[in-house]
């Protein structure tokens, strides 16, 4: 098959503006281009996601049975929360696997799992859908039911957790993109019958032994039984340990239900990915190690256990010379090394990385980020996909 990149007539800027996600229109992040996938490629991606999620669950269950959390370097209260939230079956709202390959015969390889605070949700759901329905306009399919699946999620949560009052605070640290993601989830919860409110974390009142509150405009204090956070668990662990203490009290006393739940921090950790990759011999796991010497004579990549947005990554060639690197804020975390794998490269030498979203662990949506370099970071472009019939 020829190059998969296709040009499109426009971008759905009206819909983006109408829904008040104007930040997506900045920095030419959304471009009038797409990528063509074949149906069997999509099915292979979905099969990989299902199997990987199942492996992650099995391995976490085994860690809980055996109390094997030492290698993750987490505070003991965080480990308590991981165990509690998993055993109490707190639901995993949404995560995103990042894959390399999978197109034109390249092997599918898991790069990482953004299990805790995945981004790219608005553009992958309604923007990609708008590309499909209003701009592509050809007989095709798209692997994208993310918005609908999230509606189903909150509808089911309302039923399964009927002892809780359906009141939800969505929160972030205030960066516009994170706030937009929190509000996106909040709006879906509202549609399904939750009373909702957004507040930056600093404005939320945490009361040990009582719950989570906001002060309303009229001076009343209102309590929420659910908290959706666009704030990483590792931030809470290492930057706000006092908040971890309070959340430990509130969650283990069923005074608040936090999403994504604490156990998603395990899935998010590249130390866990390293652990799983060694234990399970599956083609979609990259060779992984805590030591660069294990990659003598091979291209390999250095990452950190809790890195984000392509930061603090180094790619080494066969002579252990750096061929590409990014700096960032997460260099203090543990290093993990992965064998290098090829991203799909189109006819214009641009590299594509697949994001595959799951809701409650079930595949829900695919979309791509693209860059003219090997490390796909915050400068990448968003690329919708289409599956011609």
């Amino acid at each position, binding site marked *: 098959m020829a190059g998969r990149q296709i040009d499109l007539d426009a971008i759905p800027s009206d819909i983006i503006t109408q829904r008040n996600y104007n930040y997506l229109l900045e920095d030419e992040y959304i471009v009038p281009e797409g990528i063509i996938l074949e149906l069997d490629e999509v099915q292979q991606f979905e099969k990989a996601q299902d199997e990987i999620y199942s492996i992650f669950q099995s391995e976490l269950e085994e860690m809980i049975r055996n109390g094997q959390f030492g290698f993750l370097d987490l505070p003991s209260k965080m480990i308590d929360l991981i165990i509690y939230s998993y055993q109490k079956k707190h639901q995993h709202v949404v995560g995103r696997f990042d894959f390399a390959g999978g197109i034109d015969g390249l092997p599918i390889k898991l790069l990482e799992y953004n299990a805790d605070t995945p981004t790219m949700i608005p553009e992958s759901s309604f923007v990609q859908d708008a590309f499909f329905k209003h701009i592509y306009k050809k007989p095709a399919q798209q692997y994208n039911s993310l918005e609908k699946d999230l509606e189903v999620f909150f509808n089911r949560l309302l*039923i399964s957790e009927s002892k809780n*009052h359906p009141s939800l605070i969505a929160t972030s640290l205030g960066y516009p993109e994170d706030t937009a993601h929190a509000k996106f989830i909040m709006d879906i919860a509202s549609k399904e019958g939750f*009373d909702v409110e957004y507040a930056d974390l600093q404005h939320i009142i945490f009361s040990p032994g009582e719950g989570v509150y906001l002060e309303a405009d009229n001076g009343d204090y209102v*309590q929420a039984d659910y908290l959706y956070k666009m704030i*990483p668990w590792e931030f809470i662990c290492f930057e706000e340990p006092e*908040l971890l203490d309070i959340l430990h009290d509130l969650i283990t006393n069923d005074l608040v239900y936090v999403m994504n739940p604490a156990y998603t921090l395990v899935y998010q950790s590249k130390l866990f990915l390293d652990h799983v990759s060694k234990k399970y011999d599956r083609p979609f796991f990259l060779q992984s190690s805590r030591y660069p010497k294990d990659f003598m004579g091979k291209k390999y990549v250095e990452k950190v256990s809790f890195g984000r947005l392509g930061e603090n990554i180094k790619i080494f060639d066969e002579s252990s010379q750096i061929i590409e690197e990014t700096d960032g804020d997460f260099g203090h975390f543990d290093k993990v090394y992965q064998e290098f794998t090829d991203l799909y490269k189109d006819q214009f030498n641009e590299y594509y990385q697949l994001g595959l979203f799951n809701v409650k662990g079930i595949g829900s949506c695919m979309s791509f980020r693209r860059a003219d370099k090997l490390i796909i970071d915050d400068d990448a472009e968003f690329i919708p996909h289409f599956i011609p019939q």
Partner: protein
Amino acid sequence: MENNQNEYQGPQPEEQSTGGGFNFRWILYGAVGLYFLYRMFSGGSGDSSNDYVEETLVEPTQGIICELKEEEKDLYKITNEELIENRADSRIIVTNLDSSIDTFTIDEVKISDASNPRRSMMRSVLMGGMLGYMMGRPMGSGLARSSYASDNSYKKSNTGGRSRLNSTARRTTVRKPSTKTGFGSGKSSRSYGG
């Protein structure tokens, strides 16, 4: 591609949002809210770790015989309050317009009964008097002149009566968990998503 594996049941009608309102079930009003806010931002008088705040609860131990008079139809005023030894022996003696007399316990007056508006009117008057301290009003708050039939009855309770009730009250210091806020402030300059 239809990859949804769940059967969508649609929104639950009885739980529909009211347009983004935040009508949560637990609402703390008025003075309680202000007190809560004060303790939160003042840090209370808690220990050095700031995990708890201390609060002194003041509770009457003596009882009161409260005399009420119905001056006009459904308009009651306190004519006299006498302290007695036992709180459990407290009574409200009501002289009605027709000169008949009813006697109630505090618990009887406290019961909300939609079919008995008379009791509700008595309750609001009693809350302004010393008996109000036994019905949940903080002992630091003053008496309401409007609850009393005369200046004399008001002064009697507001000076000697209130002072004696306060001097024999039980004081309990309790430790309450402090509330915390302000986490993550100053961290909005970058995304923490992935």
